């Protein structure tokens, strides 16, 4: 039952406890406090009410309920005129997280930029580090590598002095590893990714062990070491993480083809292609189709790659437009088809 007799000072203390439970991922405790606090919101002053809705948004995010998280934010925004600057900062971060989780990275970045203007008001070094890590991750997916590295370094500076933040530091190192892959600095990428892997193993965080194995696979694919990549990708596949399974299967199929393991390549391709259709993941379906044409169905290679690139242009996935256009342009250049090669070199430089 609710405790309507709580004064506003007690409510503020309980809101603090709630936020701590959320940050420590104590889901049951957070759910209990949520029930108690919710039953007495009519008694809150405006300041506590705003804080309540902001923390509630975070609570729903923790439970991967983006819709309710957005609704809580909307409730908070009804009192926008009464927000103090720290509450405004937290609102922008919560909005950014929601956009990030929906893969709307440009909108997420806009929110984080608004939050950054108020970052000087935040004293907690973990919170500052988390902010920089989120912004760096957003830059990573927007393929703005230099700024991702810069914010990644700021995040690492905040986490590094505190042994207790090893998890967040490892996430930062994993991201920096992928940034170094994009910068073709494979030695530093390898060092960062292996550091991250060691930390995640120490912390027994299996989801992130799987993600790091995938990322090591990416590193070895990009540095033309498919046999080394297979070792990590097979390990990643054993992690049974549904969210990234298609990414793993795609790279595995590519590596199996490169190492002349046709049967295994076809198995990985077939599972990946069919699953992407079942899930309605059209972008991944195109990636698998293009991979298949590259190795098994050369007659349709050009037409399918052209159509695939058109699709990625249509959905504004410039990363994939660049990636596939560069390879297609090189193919046309090798075949002395310079005019069409030029068209794809233009797209490769988008």
């Amino acid at each position, binding site marked *: 039952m609710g405790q309507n007799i709580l004064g506003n000072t007690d409510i503020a203390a309980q809101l603090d406890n709630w936020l701590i439970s*959320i*940050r*420590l*991922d*104590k889901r049951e405790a957070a759910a209990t406090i949520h029930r108690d606090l919710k039953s007495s919101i009519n008694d809150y002053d405006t300041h506590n009410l705003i804080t309540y809705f902001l923390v509630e948004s975070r609570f729903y*995010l*923790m439970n*991967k309920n983006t819709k309710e998280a957005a609704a809580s934010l909307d409730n908070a925004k009804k009192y926008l005129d009464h927000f103090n600057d720290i509450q405004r900062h937290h609102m922008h971060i919560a909005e*950014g*997280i929601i956009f990030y*989780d929906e893969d*709307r*990275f*440009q909108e997420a970045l806009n929110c984080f930029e608004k939050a950054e203007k108020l970052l000087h008001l935040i004293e907690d070094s*973990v919170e500052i580090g*988390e902010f920089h*890590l989120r912004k760096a*991750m*957003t830059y*990573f*997916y*927007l*393929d*703005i590598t230099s700024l991702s590295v810069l914010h990644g370094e700021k995040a690492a500076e905040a986490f590094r002095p505190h042994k*207790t933040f*090893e*998890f*967040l530091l490892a996430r930062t190192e994993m*991201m920096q590893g*992928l940034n170094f892959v994009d910068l073709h600095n494979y030695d530093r990428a390898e060092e960062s990714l292996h550091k991250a892997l060691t930390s995640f193993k*120490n*912390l027994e*965080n299996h*989801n*992130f062990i799987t*993600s790091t194995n*995938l*990322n090591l696979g*990416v590193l070895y694919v990009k540095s033309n070491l498919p046999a080394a990549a297979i070792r990590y990708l097979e390990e990643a596949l054993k992690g049974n993480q549904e*969210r*990234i399974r298609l*990414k793993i299967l795609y*790279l595995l199929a590519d590596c199996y083809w490169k190492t002349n393991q046709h049967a295994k390549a076809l198995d990985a391709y077939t599972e990946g292609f069919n699953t992407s259709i079942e899930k309605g993941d059209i*972008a991944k379906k195109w*990636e698998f189709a293009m991979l298949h044409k590259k190795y098994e169905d050369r007659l349709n290679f050009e037409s399918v790659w052209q159509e695939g690139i058109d699709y*990625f242009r249509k*959905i*504004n*996935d*410039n*990363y*994939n437009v660049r990636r596939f256009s560069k390879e297609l342009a090189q193919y046309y250049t090798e075949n002395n088809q*310079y005019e069409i*090669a*030029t068209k794809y*070199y*233009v*797209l490769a*430089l*988008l």
Partner: protein
Amino acid sequence: MKKLVFSLLLIGAIIMSGLVGYADQHHNETAGKEGDLGSSIFSLKFLNK
């Protein structure tokens, strides 16, 4: 001759794409990168106190 035309086209393309790329940078909604960073929802439960 063909190579010269190709080089000129390529230089033009690089200049154009620089302009287009800058303008488009702010509309890039998705990026299907091969790697994975996980969610931007962090929890501190892995603090090794």
